[in-house]
């Protein structure tokens, strides 16, 4: 199991074209793309895929995210088999989707379901940037909407881990409309008094930032992740100058008033469960002696 994860991690960095560091033993080391320090894959994985030297929070798959977030054996997946069709007959879209399915083991860019986090029952959704940069097409839009609706119906909190390159161009206008659909569902959950927590992970951009990711009652971001509306290159093209390094970082988002807090990955489980507990109906709160 751990070995499999290790394979995924090294494969990812090899794909990125990053240099492999010298190996002290037969095992391949994780080399941080930010600080260039190395550590063993076990240490890296054990540290929840965060660089032990500089705290770089690497992108992780939805399965990996679930493994470090939900209580053991508590996760029940929703809409597992939902899969994209080709609404605007986009050339080669089906082939692209089926290739990604076999490569990632996912049916689209999000996993949703219900679980407990430190005993707190909630609906959870995790986007996965390895599937077409977690762009939002019909499947992401529908699963997110159903998650909002389930949260309202079952009176459970909703926690969404967002990551996305934005709308899925291959689904044309249909993908744009998912922004309205998901935001409308968020508005309805809000009217029903439901708690919605967003965790912005790397990268949260475009149509997802301009819809449900920005609508959380409480918006958490992982440190230094990319959060923004327009792509960096698009803005640089418009203003004809280079943007500073920290532009559109989690810290930039917090400073400008669009996130509530930055929380390190190792503290997320505790933070989320505490926040959920604070939103329990008053009568259910245990009397503290």
């Amino acid at each position, binding site marked *: 199991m751990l070995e499999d994860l290790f394979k995924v991690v090294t494969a990812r960095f090899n794909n990125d074209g990053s240099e492999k560091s010298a190996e002290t033993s037969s095992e391949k080391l994780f080399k941080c793309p930010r600080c260039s320090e190395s550590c063993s894959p076990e240490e890296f994985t054990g540290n929840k895929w965060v660089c032990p030297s500089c705290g770089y929070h690497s992108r992780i798959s939805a399965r990996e995210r679930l493994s470090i977030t939900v209580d053991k054996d508590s996760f029940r997946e929703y809409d597992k088999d939902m899969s994209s*069709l080709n609404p*605007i007959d986009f050339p080669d879209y089906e082939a692209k989707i089926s290739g990604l399915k076999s490569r990632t083991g996912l049916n689209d860019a999000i996993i949703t379901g219900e679980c407990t986090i430190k005993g707190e029952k909630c609906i959870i959704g995790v986007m996965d940037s390895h599937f077409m940069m977690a762009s939002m097409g019909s499947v992401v839009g529908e699963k997110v909407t159903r998650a909002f609706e389930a949260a309202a119906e079952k009176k459970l909190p909703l926690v969404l881990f967002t990551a996305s390159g934005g*709308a899925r161009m291959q689904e044309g206008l249909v993908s744009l409309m998912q*922004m*309205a659909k998901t*935001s409308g569902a968020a508005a*309805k959950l809000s009217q029903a008094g439901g708690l919605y927590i967003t965790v912005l992970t790397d990268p949260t951009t475009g149509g997802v930032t301009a*819809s449900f990711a920005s609508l959380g009652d409480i918006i958490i971001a992982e440190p230094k992740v990319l959060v923004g509306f*327009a*792509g960096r290159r698009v803005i640089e093209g418009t203003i004809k100058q280079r943007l500073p390094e920290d532009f559109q970082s989690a810290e930039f988002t917090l400073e400008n008033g669009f996130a509530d807090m930055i929380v390190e990955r190792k503290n997320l489980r505790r933070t989320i469960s505490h926040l959920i507990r604070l939103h329990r109906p008053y009568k259910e709160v245990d009397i503290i002696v």
Partner: protein
Amino acid sequence: MSEEMNVTGAEDITDAITPYERLEIIRNKNRPTIRDYLPLIFNDFFELHGDRLYGDDGAILGGIGRLGNIPVTVIAEVKGRDIFENKASNFAMPHPEGYRKALRLARQAEKFNRPVICFIDTPGAFCGIAAEKRGQGEAIARNLAEFMVLKTPVISVVLGEGGSGGALALGVCDELAMLENSIYSVISPRGFASILWKDASKEKEACNIMRITAEDAVNLGIAEQIIPEPEGGAHNDPEMTAENISKFLVKTLNSKMKKDIDVLLNERYNKFRKIGVFSETSENI
């Protein structure tokens, strides 16, 4: 001009005009903008300014006026026709304060039981440092969410360019109409070509596969009505185009205003709720 003639004309044009030709029509420098249509469609119009939070965005115009006898709130993206107009309206690319002004006026409309009429005409929300700092994503998201539950009828009309989230921010409505030659797209055809083929000059090819015309939007269940334009495009007869828009608005408002608000809101939610194409079987591929 009789209504019949318009309709016949529309059918002829639809067969003949390619999506790219429509793009050329809406880029015609004489294409009417909301500033042309306002006095032709509304009476006693008062422009209202500012989002009460940061500033006043010239890319989005708002105000109150009368459509026939009905007091309405008008919210519109403003294209310019020369460099001065475009400077004032930032080429119809709104900043967050534009969307927040729109939301302020929509809530005001809700308070006074006025219907809201939105006119969409933008290449997209502005992409820049200030827009990011002031939360472009949040501003659009908030409009999508709040318009979905706004307790008054909302009608939107795409006049020319319906560019991406910047257009959709005024597009959560009970009924969407598009002028015959207008387009509505997830990204500009140029942006599409540059992302997909790394070549922005392939705009024409992009237009032809993106499904961006009014007819496409109707077929995809996203727009309800196509408003006919005079032959060759709206610039050939702005008065007739304005009259066609007015007819659509009066008819649609009359039917929407009669509805119980909860019914209307359910229908609005379901109009968007049902958009999406997917399968739910366990078979792979």
